[in-house]
């Protein structure tokens, strides 16, 4: 067996046998699913609580409009005086008092309506109430101006722009959302992978250093070979762990879904969808449309570019991690060198989530999808939106070039660093090591 294979094998086995690794592999999906279930369960708990809201309506217009819903029960206290109404709300521990004074009528800008309560009401309750009043008052204004409400209602236009590119491919807003989710998930996934397994590479380098076995090893193999073996071995362990997470997480999620069955109930689902549709203007479509849009995505291209950027990004960062591990004596000392890793990663994610989603082909997104340290994340997010092949090519060439350069540089730091004990190096010293 070649030395590189031996090193990869040892690293892989060392990672996989590690107790923390084993525990995390099987515990993480459990914790994740438990948390998601808990949140879902808590959400239903919260929804079950019905708020009791008292209204004091001086205009006498709204009696019929405040209808009890799942979330709010309305009580009409208009027959009392305002002070009595307030007192009894406090006394009966009701959730709030809505005061609609006479003066609120027929004003277009209306801020005289008040809501009294001990605790500030939730936004959703306020929105519901505001909507009811707004509709009513608007209609009232229409009537006063002698307009036919039904005619207005009927003449309201509903517009949904269909998107089509010049080669005749039809797209919709739906597909934009799917692309966003695709790109976002891929970018986020890559960042997580880099942070988790890059750190593992670093720890493994530090371990060899602090165990003082390093000199024995590098009297047999080249330092660069050792570094590569570490990065590869750890990444295989990482891929194994991620695969287990995905499978186990999926199975557990399915099981949890069976038990909680809150969202999987078709009636509820339909209702929730409708609600969402109403709120967001037809974004949420049915499953067939999603499937249809998914099929239209260039899945093979996505997969290939995902693999290239994923592997490239991981190699780029983990060789930096390895160099940092070689430069320090303990994990605590490594903090000072984390900035060059965390900064571009964060930048990539933020540019991705703000700039790419807003404008996938804008200058900011394009530039950051070219710069090697951010390109894996940003380009992964851009690709579902369709990027010119030459842009991808340039970005990949830059990435590959910088992988070679950074690995070489990291290898030089690594080579010197693993034999240095005792003092914490500075950036200046790292720079000097590159020249030894």
């Amino acid at each position: 067996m070649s030395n590189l294979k031996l090193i990869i094998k040892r690293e892989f086995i060392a990672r996989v046998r590690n107790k923390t690794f084993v525990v995390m592999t099987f515990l993480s999906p459990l914790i994740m699913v438990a948390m998601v279930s808990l949140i879902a369960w808590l959400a239903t708990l919260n929804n079950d609580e019905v708020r009791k809201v008292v209204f004091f309506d001086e205009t006498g217009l709204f009696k019929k409009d405040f209808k009890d819903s799942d979330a709010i029960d309305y009580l009409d206290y208009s027959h009392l005086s305002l002070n009595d109404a307030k007192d009894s709300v406090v006394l009966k521990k009701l959730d709030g008092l809505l005061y609609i004074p006479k003066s609120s009528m027929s004003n277009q800008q209306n801020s005289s309506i008040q809501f009294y309560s001990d605790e500030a009401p939730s936004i959703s309750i306020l929105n519901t109430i505001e909507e009811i009043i707004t509709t009513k008052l608007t209609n009232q204004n229409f009537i006063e101006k002698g307009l036919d409400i039904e005619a207005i209602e009927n003449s309201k236009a509903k517009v949904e722009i269909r998107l089509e590119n010049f080669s005749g491919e039809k797209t919709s807003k739906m597909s934009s959302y799917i692309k966003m989710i695709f790109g976002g998930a891929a970018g986020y996934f890559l960042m997580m992978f880099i942070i988790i397994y890059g750190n593992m590479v670093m720890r493994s380098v530090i371990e060899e250093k602090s165990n003082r076995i390093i000199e024995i090893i590098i009297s047999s193999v080249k330092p660069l070979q050792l570094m590569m073996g570490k990065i590869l071995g750890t990444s295989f362990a990482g891929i194994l762990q991620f695969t287990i997470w995905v499978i186990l997480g999926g199975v557990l999620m399915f099981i949890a879904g069976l038990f909680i069955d809150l969202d999987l109930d078709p009636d509820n689902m339909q209702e929730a969808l409708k609600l969402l549709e109403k709120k967001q203007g037809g974004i949420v479509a049915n499953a067939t449309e999603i499937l249809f849009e998914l099929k239209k995505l260039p899945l093979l291209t996505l997969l290939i570019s995902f693999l290239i950027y994923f592997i490239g990004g991981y190699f780029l960062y983990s060789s930096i991690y390895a160099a940092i591990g070689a430069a320090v004596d303990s994990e605590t000392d490594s903090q000072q060198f984390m900035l060059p890793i965390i900064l571009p990663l964060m930048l990539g994610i933020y540019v991705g989530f703000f700039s790419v989603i807003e404008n996938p082909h804008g200058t900011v997104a394009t530039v950051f999808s070219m710069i090697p340290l951010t390109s894996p994340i940003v380009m992964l997010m851009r690709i579902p939106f369709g990027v010119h092949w030459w842009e991808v090519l340039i970005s990949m060439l830059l990435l590959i070039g910088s992988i070679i350069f950074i690995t070489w540089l990291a290898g030089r730091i690594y080579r010197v660093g693993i034999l240095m004990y005792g003092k914490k190096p500075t950036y200046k010293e790292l720079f000097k090591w590159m020249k030894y």
Partner: protein
Amino acid sequence: MANLLEVQQATKRFGTFTALNNVSIQVPKGSIFGLLGPNGAGKTTLIRIINQITLPDEGSVLLDNEPLQLHHVKDIGYLPEERGLYKSMKVGEQALYLAQLKGLSKREAKERLKYWFDKFDITHWWDKKIQELSKGMAQKVQFIVTVLHRPKLLIFDEPFSGFDPINANVIKDEILQLREEGATVIFSTHRMESVEELCDHIALIHKSKKILEGKVTDIKKAYKTNTFEVGLLADNSIQVYAELQDKFKVIPADFKTIDDQLKMKITLDDNLSSNELLQYLSNKGQIMRFNEVIPGVNEIFIKTITDNE
């Protein structure tokens, strides 16, 4: 005798600091070669160059008359001063891994490890983790791993540190045995008594430069000063001492005796032989002790270093 290893004018700089300045050494085949020098003299850098861990800025290294190449790592066994093993890996697995890195097949490595583990009576350690072993025990495993691939050249940096006297002796005998079997040994240590005992060649490095190299016997011949240690039973020792002081360079000496002797060290001029001194002394009293003072490696070490300050 042919040289197994030749380092030719090796220079290594780290930035502005010169760790090794134009150092050449010749290590004869089958010798035990002591590499000596104070802390920070450059020994470790030299050893790392021989192991291809660091590359020299100038100069070259020949192993068996060939310039060093990657495949030569299989011909060298190195036990560094900073040594350790993977703490959470089992002894057997670890030894197998390290042996395979040196190019042994798994089967071969297993067989040889079994031989050595039997020899050191540590077979029951195979499935233990290193963190369960004591430091001395781990050192034994390291020693085995160093010699397992039967390298032509063995490099030991402070091999006895961490061993109790009994185990240090076991290791010393193994080193001598390996030499018998044809290995050449480079031996770096500060313990001069083991240099005295084991080495037939030495080189002394001080402040990045080699200041002394050669056969131990040759060096001792060069450093001896024609001085003799004398024990004399004389009736009037004070008078005899005074007379001797007139004729020779005499200083009092101290060694253990059962009777009251006149103890001294006498240094002769080059034109006088020991026989002439003996004749002279035999007239003065009864000679109880007469032997040549041969400088120890320790003295040579200290003298050379202080002369070079």
